[in-house]
């Protein structure tokens, strides 16, 4: 099919899997948050890619342009980005508190401490 034209979507998949992999495989809590962010970014690109209309320009009203890309996905993504920011902020706050409580942000060390107590 139109594989090279679907370049955006390939990026989406790569980012999604990368992010997911980082979340699952890394034991460091901060890295997990990073992975989560990458994962969420792939979704942003998915939405924006689907909003592009062939031959359309940016969705801002301007003289001389007839075709615009779909503005709705952009709006949705703004919302999703905000949600992502909030999640990241919350995650980081939790990491700070965990560091205070456990002295480490490595998942396996935390588990050891929990089992010991």
């Amino acid at each position, binding site marked *: 099919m139109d594989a090279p034209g679907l370049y955006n979507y390939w990026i989406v998949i790569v980012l999604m899997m990368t992010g*997911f992999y980082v*979340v699952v495989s890394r034991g460091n*809590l901060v890295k*997990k948050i990073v992975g*989560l962010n990458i*994962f*969420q970014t792939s*979704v942003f690109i*998915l*939405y924006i890619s*689907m909003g592009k209309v062939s031959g359309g320009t940016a969705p801002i009203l301007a003289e001389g342009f007839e075709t615009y890309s779909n503005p*709705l*996905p952009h709006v*949705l993504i703004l*919302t*999703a980005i905000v*949600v992502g920011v*909030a*999640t990241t902020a*919350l*995650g980081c706050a*939790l*990491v700070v*508190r*965990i560091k205070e*409580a*456990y002295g480490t942000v490595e998942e396996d060390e*935390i588990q050891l401490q*929990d089992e010991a107590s």
Partner: protein
Amino acid sequence: MIAAHLPALQIVVPLVSAPLCLLLRRGGLAWALALIASWAALACAVLLLQQVIATGPISYHLGGWAPPWGIEYRIDAVNGFVLVIVAAIGAAVMPYARESVAREVPEEQHATFYTALLLCLTGLLGVTITGDAFNLFVFLEISSLSSYVLIALGRDRRALTAAFQYLVMGTIGATFIVIGVGLLYMVTGTLNMLDLAERLPPMAESRTVVAAFAFLTVGAGLKLALFPLHFWLPNAYAYAPSVVTAFLAATATKVSVYILLRFFFTVFGTTYSFELVTLENLLIPLGVIAILVCSTVAIFQTNVKRMLAYSSIAQVGYMVLGIGFASTAGLTATIVHLFNHAMTKGGLFLALGCVVLRLGSAQLESLEGLGRRMPLTMFAFVLGGLSLIGVPLTVGFISKWVLVQAALERGNWFVAAVILLGSLLAIVYIWRVVEVAYFRPAPEGDAAAPIAEAPLSMLIPTWVLIGATIYFGIDTSLTLGVAERAAQHLLGGGA
């Protein structure tokens, strides 16, 4: 005038009260505001449900913008019922929260606590009431983020790691949902649920739609702790403050089940979900495994909160079975169990919260002799336990009856046996608590600080919920009536 805008008020009241709580600084004032807001939300929900039962589905256009471009709040029998459940639990938990939070959460964080609780309530109500798929994601994240905060406010430091684990898994789940919604938007160009329902059938063969379905199912499954995506739940429930556990156990999973119901039956439709995708081959086995495995694991827990957490995962299994049956009886069973389980688990966790208030711990061993020292609390626990088991005259029996009925209708003998086996397993873990509380003598402790019964502000909400488990186990006309109506509506036809 107000009546016309009830749907909006349902969300606005708790939403606006939340930052006000934060501004109020003092825990006592914040609590008072939260109390008023949650009771107002309950009033809204009850009025809305009454209206739906009388005149059929309500459609509210937010901001006056017509759907499918504007966001629509659409209330029919299904989400009307769920609204009442969520709001009722919120209203019951709020008076209880005063003493419980004072004991379990540091003073300076009280206002934050009530803010987060109200936000969580807003989010859950929003997920239920909205008729727009992306709006659902937004409200879902509002409720999830605030629940991460609430869980992290627990005393034990493991609450932090539990909240973090929940954050990671919950975000992945929500992101899956948003991917699913995005894919659906891609093929249909609309986000409104009813509009999607109209536009999807011609696209049914498309791989994108299947992918969307899969993402939505897994995403919602993570949120409702569908086996095997349940790992975040035991820790989250065990280490969160008691109020939070009770609130979340009684609402969050129910709302996630609602999401599944809405997407499977309203958006995708029964034909797609069950004939093309054959969802029952996934849901029924998972439900069966959840019931058997989690009930068994619950038996071996030493912390009563974890025991009830695993029990909750098993109960979610029952709900999922009902969805898998995809019949009027099956869906009636699921929807009525949303209500019944909310009352039962809410009451049980509130009773446990009373115990934690006095004893400081929910470990099974520390409950020795509690039957004598805190008779009202433990009796509430026993009644809730009997409802979990499914003894007649409790709501648990009604759920089990309708569910086994649905299984037998399909000729599914094995599943019927599994459902009853789940009851038998529940007897084992509930009776462990009963035996420790009633058969062991109270430990010789400090005579200086004798254990007294829980304060009234905590006993009354507990007994309200437990009383509901008995009352609605005898007079089922309201719950079963609405549930059946909702089931018929979901399956097409009827409102």
